[in-house]
């Protein structure tokens, strides 16, 4: 038996992939892992709840949002632009690491994770949040609540969230332009 296939063209981390034939009904996480060799996104619950598998969907030039790849078919991403955890740090043309992103560095500095399984999801969620605050800053008094609302869907089973939330809060408060009240 052969599964029907569909052509998929997708831009991931600035690089265009495809068109490649993908079995219909395959979830995007399987395509990332098995077809494209991008194994950084983590499969957790498989039913869209834990958010370990999220990628960043660059919906247009201005807006980015999270999408769970474990419950979203590869076909959804046809013609779309996404970023995975592999594309968050800055690299040179040869792929050598130049610098971690501020979010990644903050998580390391604050010992935010232990086993690290949920970390790619948290990095992407925090990245999306910071990009949103660049467009629409919030008063610093609301940062704590804003961080909690943005990250609450992400499940972590070792460190109890506090250090993730602290790291993102501190990063936002320390980054000019993300809050809008006068210092």
């Amino acid at each position, binding site marked *: 038996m052969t599964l029907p296939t569909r052509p998929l063209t997708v831009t991931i981390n600035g690089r265009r992939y495809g068109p490649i034939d993908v079995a219909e009904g395959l979830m995007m996480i399987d395509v990332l892992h098995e077809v494209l060799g991008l194994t950084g996104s983590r499969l957790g619950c498989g039913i869209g709840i834990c958010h370990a598998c999220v990628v960043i969907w660059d919906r247009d030039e201005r807006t980015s949002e999270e999408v769970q790849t474990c419950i*979203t078919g590869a076909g959804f991403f046809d013609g779309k632009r996404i970023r995975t955890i592999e594309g968050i740090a800055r690299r040179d043309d040869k792929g050598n690491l130049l610098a971690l992103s501020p979010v990644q560095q903050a998580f390391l500095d604050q010992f935010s994770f232990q086993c690290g399984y949920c970390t790619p999801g948290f990095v992407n969620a925090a990245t999306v949040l910071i990009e949103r605050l660049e467009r629409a800053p919030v008063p610093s008094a609301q940062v704590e609540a804003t961080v909690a609302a943005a990250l609450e869907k992400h499940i972590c089973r070792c460190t109890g969230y506090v250090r993730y939330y602290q790291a993102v809060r501190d990063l936002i408060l320390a980054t000019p332009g993300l809050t809008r009240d006068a210092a």
Partner: protein
Amino acid sequence: MIVRRTGLRIVIITAVVLIAGVAATAFAMRNLWSGKTDGPVQVVSAPADVVARGKYLTEAADCAGCHTAPGGAPFAGGLAMPSGFGTIYATNITPDPDDGIGRWSAEDFWRALHDGIRRDGQQLYPAMPYTSYRGMPRADADAIYAYLMRRPAMKVANRTTELNFPFNIRLGMLGWNTLFLHDSLPAVSAGSSPAWQRGRYLVNVLGHCGECHTPRGIAGEMTSSLTGFALGRVAAPDITPGGLASRGWTGAGLRAYLGRGFARQGSAFGDMHPVIMLSTRNLTAEDLDAVAIYLLGDNPPPPAPLLATDATDSAAASEAGRMSYVALCAGCHGLDGNGVPNTVVAMRNNSTLRLADPRNLIVVMLDGIRAENFPHHASMQAMPGFSDKLSDAEAAALANYLRVIWGGQKGDVAASVVRTLR
């Protein structure tokens, strides 16, 4: 001649209205004069078996559904009920002497349930379903009273109703009651067995199912019994024998759904979820059976099989709808539509897909459903809403695909229907 006859009619009508007005005023005055606000705090002693029966009846009547606000103290009131006429707040029915019903006698309690009149003589609004509870025997009302009066008193003040003029005049309910308050509600099915009789009492009176499932007229009165109505965003579907059978419901399915919250035909969501958690899950096996027998009748209609989709319908279920299903739904509900047992409901044979009205299907696609816990430690995972991922046309195409493939319905949903539900 015609003029004179019309004149005579006007005189007669005016006289009737005047007499009715005077009678109503006199009746209201009698209620208000006999109404009480202070008085002794009632001390209720009732045998344990009466109190236990009162607890069961209180659950079957789902008093907590409205009189316990989410996160609030049991029976202390506070749930807001928005209506086309304004917002009504459920009251405190704990035995607190000042905020609750601590000074109410069993007679006062009976009058509220049976006639819709408060202890102070004022009219209740039919958000309190005395229209249904009117069929309750006095002994059952007294048992509920005995149970409630033995609950802990809660000092929670009642909120004032916020109704617009002229609906804020409680006296107006006298006319409403004259027109719409009946001693019993019509039977929804044919039957005569003892189980059917019991089911009629559980559904029409205690469960007050018609308050949501029966369409309401312009004055808020109940019309054709249990044929389905959208009081809120999620519509209460048609639960007549014909309506249920057309969506594949059987006695076994109804017993499972009301007893544990989900069945092969789907899981409870929206306003039906608390009904199951607070009320129907507590019914005995015999009473669940009685409810199912009454809803379907002593001779239940056979559940409608899913019709084989014909070529035109399949064409209507466009490729676009299928692609959206594969991209956004199949990850959990499965390419085969079978879902995941105890986690994700099946699309195949799903009652919501088999409704002729696409409203609930579209509302769920747009809003999602939060994670729900069910009796016996069962649960269903949260479903995300897809309002930001589906355009009106895409959502309509997806709804049509689901309706045609797994609902046996027509693929006739237009994008404009989705737009009005956003």
